[in-house]
């Protein structure tokens, strides 16, 4: 029993490094939905704003403002209303890490 416990600890010790880059499949897929209009990795296309590398907190606040109609949107309000706070935070974090 000793060895698995030690290995488990080793895995935990490594976790901060690896998790900084890895996202769950659910978060990856939810965040990539944005790329269908904002371009691969959120790099932007003509008419679709670049969002890659935006500040995480700013992105979250923007999406929440779209959701509540505080920030008027052509289409983003309708989209943001499909997601809860935790999902908006996870998506914002993913997009903030895109380069």
């Amino acid at each position: 029993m000793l060895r698995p416990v030690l290995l488990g600890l080793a895995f935990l010790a490594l976790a901060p490094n690896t998790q900084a880059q890895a996202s769950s499949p659910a978060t990856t897929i939810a965040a990539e939905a944005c790329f269908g209009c904002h371009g691969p990795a959120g790099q932007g296309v003509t008419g679709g704003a670049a969002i890659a590398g935006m500040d995480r907190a700013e992105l979250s606040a923007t999406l929440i403002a779209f959701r509540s109609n505080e920030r008027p949107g052509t289409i983003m309000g309708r989209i943001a209303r499909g997601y809860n706070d935790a999902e908006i935070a996870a998506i914002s974090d993913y997009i903030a890490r895109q380069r």
Partner: protein
Amino acid sequence: MSVKLPRRALFAATALLTAPATPRAQTNARLLIIGGGFGGASAASFARRHYPDTQVTLVEPNRRFVTCPYGNLLLGGERQISQITHSYDGLRARGARILHDRAIGIDAAAKRVRLQGGEVLAYDRLILSPGIAIRWGAIEGYDQAAADIMPHAWIPGDGTQNLLLRRQLEAMPDGGVVGLAIPANPFRCPPGPYERISMIAHYLKKHKPRSKILALDAKETFSKQGLFQDGWRALYGEMVEWVPNNRDGKVVKVDPREKILETEFGTRHKVDVANVIPPQSAGTIAIEAGLANNTGWVPVNTRSFEAHAAQGIHVIGDANIPGPMPKSGYIAHSTAKQAVASAMASLRGEAPPEAIYFNTCYSHVGTDYGISIVGVFRPNADGTAIAEVPNSGGASPRGDLPDQRRLEAIYADAWYEAITKSMFG
């Protein structure tokens, strides 16, 4: 044997100790994808980007992909065929093996797929994205030969059908009638026929302003109806006549030689150009593999997209029955990723990840005039149902909103560029 067995056992023990969440199946798993459209190409790109150890093979008969979206802009004279045609080179560069062949048989038990060219491909997981098939003969007289005279232009293939319809519009004299036959639900791209009406009107208004569009519909309501009808009135006046099912709009028979569209109660509409969008089913290989039910579409688990009829086969895109989700390119793109993630999870003995599916369908009604519908959908935990998130999504607001329409036309173009780059890059 006596030497190998202990070594294999040792390998297994080592693998367990060093990588508890990564059994052998994940490494070098063979993911086979049939169909290189919005579902299949998206699946291939996603798999290569996020599961780089996976061997991805994509089988697609066409060497280049002509998109259904923006095909209507070709009819409107706003795009050339080259602008809606895409190469598979980007997916090749990502390391996907692309086979330009046709899958003709699936052996689900043996996990093998046979190709027309003779090759047999073994897989660990199969993603089937076969698109739609036309139900030839569902409208009396509408067979393959009739489609050469009355194009459907609903499965682009190499673009022949779209270009044929475009040439017919160009050849039609001013004052002619363009007739459309529009099917009942469900069918590929719910707003598509109405964007097509818009883009044909856009062309006619400019070049043949005395002409008319007669849209014969097997339905009584349609996607973004109010928005489309507002736009038709504002931009094209009396040019568009839409006839719903309850006013004898359902076309049941065609006469290609006489260019006649005949409705249920026997009205024979003689037109100059006929675009017949016929009733459809899941793509042929899904039907032949026994994956479809009596609706002609494939019921799937809404979380993994595994077909009810066969384990290990994930059916995505227009071929499945997606609950309230539309048969759209964006849904095919979105659900393709979930299907890949579920397939990979399954090979590790894990459940499919949590899922949110996302859709936006833009339509061009005229110059600087775009409209949209948004949907965010969630499956339940066991994949038996799916629901749209309450109070989210929906269609563009109605009313005199020129800035909204202008921006949505720009965003529609952005969507096309972004999603095709995401699929093929």
